[in-house]
């Protein structure tokens, strides 16, 4: 039997179709999934965040292991006073919780309302200090690695200190303050100073609007302990 050229072509095409559909079938079956570039981007961000959490968790596990060893040793070894170890741990925890007076190198920031003349139709809001300004500065300082922060000698504790506008004054730790605000922070002086002075920081825009912001570094800044309530009514462990 002799094949015509049309039949030959059809044969070749059918074979090609067979190969292609097999490949497609295998690709679908092999677990490959289709993702758009956007989804892929979202996934790689997610991956990055998960990896960062892993690092965090590993560090926590390691520190817990060290602590367990320490307490185990204190329990079994008669030469170590268990109470002392416990006492030391309490001191550390209090320090982390912001319940001790601390001192160290850091910066002192003075923020107060601007004194420049207002332009025509300009609202006075622009040159006055607001609660959001103070909050953003505190956030900038935290990001620069501040270990302790106080505003007008009120220790800033994240879960208890609200910084709230109450008209002409700002409430910090349920105490009312007016300008000037003196923010103190302990940490690396260079980092902290540049967090306030750097272009693009919140204080930069404050200065541009006319609010007075002054930063001084200091070898020794002392920051008082948080003195408010510690009672929890709703949170149960």
């Amino acid at each position, binding site marked *: 039997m002799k094949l015509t050229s049309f039949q030959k072509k059809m044969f070749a095409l059918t074979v090609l179709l067979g190969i292609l559909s097999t490949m497609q079938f295998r690709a679908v079956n092999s677990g490959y999934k289709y993702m758009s570039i956007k989804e892929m981007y979202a*996934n790689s*961000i997610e991956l990055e965040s998960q990896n960062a959490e892993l690092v965090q968790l590993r560090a926590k596990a390691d520190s*817990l292991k060290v602590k*367990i060893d320490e307490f185990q040793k204190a329990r079994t070894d008669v030469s170590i006073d268990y109470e002392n170890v416990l006492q030391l741990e*309490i001191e550390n*925890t209090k320090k982390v919780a912001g319940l001790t007076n*601390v001192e160290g190198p850091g910066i002192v920031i003075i923020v107060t309302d601007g004194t420049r003349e207002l332009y025509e139709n300009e609202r006075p809001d622009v040159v006055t200090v607001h609660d959001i300004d103070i909050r953003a500065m505190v956030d900038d300082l935290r990001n620069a690695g501040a270990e302790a922060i106080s505003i007008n000698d009120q220790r800033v504790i*994240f879960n208890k200190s609200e910084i*709230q506008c109450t008209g002409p004054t700002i409430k910090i730790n349920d105490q009312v303050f007016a300008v000037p605000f003196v923010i103190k922070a302990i940490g690396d002086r260079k980092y902290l100073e540049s967090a306030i002075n750097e272009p693009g920081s919140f204080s930069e825009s404050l200065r541009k609007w006319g609010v007075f912001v002054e930063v001084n570094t200091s070898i020794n800044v002392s920051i008082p302990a948080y003195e408010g309530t510690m009672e929890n*009514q709703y949170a149960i462990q």
Partner: protein
Amino acid sequence: MKTDKIWIGVACVILGVFIAFQMKFIQGTYLDGSTPTQKTTEILNEMATVKAEKKALIEEVENLEKQLEAIQGSASEESAIVKNLTDELNKFKAFSGRTKVAGQGILVTIDNPPTDGSYGLELNIAYDYKLILELLNELNSAGAEAISINEQRVINSTEVRLAGSQMNVNTIPISPPFIIKGIGNSKTMDGALNMRFGIIESIRDRGYYVEVKPVENIEVPAFNGTYKFKYANTVK
């Protein structure tokens, strides 16, 4: 006939050059030299391993914490002083956010609006992280006792920071949707956030998606990081 063939040849060459350009561009920039399907599988596989490892680590951390508690518990059975001290330690630990807590509270979900191809600018809540800061502050004002953002507990050192197109919280990059949990009086917090011209309204006005839900029981995780002081010294 002959010129036609030459033209087709020229077109083929141009097409070939373009395809080569396209391949080179795709390989060089987006996918580090692998095809989209390969990259996808790679990402998904890595994600699976990372998630499994995270789960294992969380379990390990919980076990270690139990061990530590057992040691401290057995020690406090022996003397009243030690028991008092241990109780005190646990109180401060809870205060500094190093324990898991649960109670009635509020659940706030913030997400970017669905992207509309016809619009030029894309909204990203991470760029407006000051709104998140304000939201946290409103929660604190309304008496929140424990707050977390995407499972990151908010503590004294917690920063909320724009980093690239993401937001860093406790130095962990997180991306929308942001799920903010707060424990406290759910009615007060709900009312404070939903106040007229309040924070939820201003977030919504910017075009983001926000949902506030008071809940009977919500769990806020412990702070998972480590905290070391390098500069601050305790003053007696």
